[in-house]
């Protein structure tokens, strides 16, 4: 399943294929699975006040200009020009393009200096593309371009699909997280929770195993919530990365927020890496958290 997730086309703002994929995978587990006006996918059972969040989207590109068989583009989400050179870009209809740079200094290249070598007759301004993930595994390691952006989603799906039925939980598959947690803000503006766990990849090198992140760049986890979760996840960490904890604690009516961080190495470089042990321990932690919630009812 993990490799499937990385082959589903879902750049920020164009996650419709991912919504379909997820809805299919978790069919029957929740009372209701639907999209909201913003494009988030929300799976919900019961009226409980606990929410698990992960994002559906990955960074990508958008075509801005086509001329002489070359397609020029802008970045969607934070994307580095040098990293893009020579990459294979996938479009919604499975056609491809290769990123080219004709200059002499790749480390100084800007996105506007690059272009796609592709079949431009099929493309138009506003088409979105993603870097082909090239997901592969060896031993304990998983590799892919952009592995980190959907690793939270992969862990959540890995966990959810182990349940036949879940009561008393809301799962937010959020849209446009790479563009500034927009889906989260839209959703929390209209839905109130007491506790939220966000599941994300963390690039912070000091976090060496799957961890409960209790403080990120802009947010801190409430001490009571931390104590509760520590019974399940005993590896505690803090990070300077932005895992949206601040935004989540302050959106809508406010909530307690913690992050489940899955370490990602070589982030934003070719073939990011996640260790399977970290991934599966993350999924196990989530499973236990959900089971505890079920038993509370």
């Amino acid at each position, binding site marked *: 399943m993990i490799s499937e997730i990385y082959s589903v086309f879902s750049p920020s703002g164009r996650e419709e294929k991912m919504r379909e994929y997820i809805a299919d995978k978790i069919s029957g587990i929740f009372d209701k699975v639907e999209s909201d*006006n*913003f494009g988030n996918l929300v799976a919900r059972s019961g009226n409980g006040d606990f929410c698990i969040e992960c994002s559906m989207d990955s960074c990508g590109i958008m075509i801005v*200009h086509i*001329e002489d068989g070359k397609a020029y583009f*802008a970045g*969607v989400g934070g994307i580095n020009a040098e990293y893009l050179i020579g990459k294979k870009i996938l479009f919604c209809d499975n056609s491809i393009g290769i990123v080219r740079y004709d200059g002499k200094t790749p480390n100084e290249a800007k996105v506007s200096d690059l272009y796609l070598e592709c079949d431009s007759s099929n493309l138009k301004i506003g088409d979105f593309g993603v870097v082909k993930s090239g997901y592969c595994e060896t031993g304990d390691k998983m590799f892919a371009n952009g592995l980190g952006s959907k690793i939270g989603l992969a862990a959540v799906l890995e966990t959810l699909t182990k349940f036949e039925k879940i009561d008393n939980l809301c799962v937010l598959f959020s849209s446009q997280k790479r563009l500034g947690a927009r889906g989260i803000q839209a*959703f929390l*503006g*209209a839905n109130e929770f007491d506790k939220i766990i966000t599941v994300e990849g963390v690039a912070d090198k000091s976090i060496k195993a799957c961890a409960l992140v209790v403080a990120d760049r802009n947010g801190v986890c409430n001490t009571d919530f931390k104590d509760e979760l520590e019974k399940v996840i005993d590896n505690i960490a803090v990070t300077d990365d932005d895992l949206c904890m601040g935004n989540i604690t302050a959106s809508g009516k406010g909530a307690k927020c913690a992050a489940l961080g899955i370490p990602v190495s070589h982030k934003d470089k070719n073939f990011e890496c996640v260790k399977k042990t970290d991934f599966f321990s993350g999924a196990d932690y989530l499973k236990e958290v959900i089971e505890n919630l079920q038993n509370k009812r």
Partner: protein
Amino acid sequence: MLKKLTESFGVSGYEMPVADIIYEEVKKFCTDIKFDNMGNLKVFKRSKTELPPKVLLSAHMDEVGLIITDVTEEGYFKFASVGGIDPKVLIAQRVNVNGLKGVISTKAVHLTTAEERKQNLSEDKLYIDIGAKDKNEAQKVAKPGDYCVFDSKYTEFGNQIKAKALDDRIGCAIMIEILKKDWPVDLYCNFTVQEEVGLRGARVASRGINPDYAVVIEGTTCNDLPGVEANLRVTKIGAGPAISILDSASKGNEELIALLEKSATRHNIPYQFKASTAGGNDAGTICITDGGIKTASLSVPCRYIHSPVCVMNKSDFENCRRLIEVFLEDMGKDGKIND
């Protein structure tokens, strides 16, 4: 009306003069008009039909300008820009300070060295000169915290119009025209404040409406000048209003964009797409309000935006208005079902 609007004074945080002009005009044909606590002007026009869809149109009243930060002993004003202004466009410009004229410049070129001429000036090195003899005289005219705007007259030339504040008096003018007529939708028109300092008024003004669709009417960058690479031009003057797909603040809702395209094609109105992901407007705060609103932006291309000599094409302006009008008419016919 566009002339009156662009020549009026309305910097982010002090939009009252513009709001008053709009209010005086709109009250001639609308009754449901409200100001909120931020100064947003919200107008509602009920549909002429039963069970209508709800549409929100939004344009901001504020323009980029300057705010006085200090008065020097010799009677010059130090200032900061409100909203994004490139300091280069400020040099040798005239401004309007509380009704009086002032000039911004630096020392004469004859008094500069070659080194100095190469450097870019930052705004903290610039000052406004109103001809005051000293601090006392200057303070009678304006104090720190008072606002200034560019001194730029509305001028028609060729097929184009030059004015300050086309961003976004264009949107305001179009909305006023639209409010004159009746529509088969429940129409909400928000004239918002403080867009230029962070899309702030729209965040408040769009709450509690829950429209089926929201369209932001704006002025946007146009860089279609000789010497600019084709992929950096963003929009083209004369090619019609531009629909934004993705910018730094929001992603245009596909369903709504498709409806706009459909109406444009059906009624033969030219349009283009904004070929860039840069910039941002009120759609950014509207689209995440109240659980999410389907929002898109329709903009008139403006050369030299955020400068005293903003330039747009008359037919782009007309076509933008026409496109909104046929969109509203079509909404009434097709409802909110997409085919």
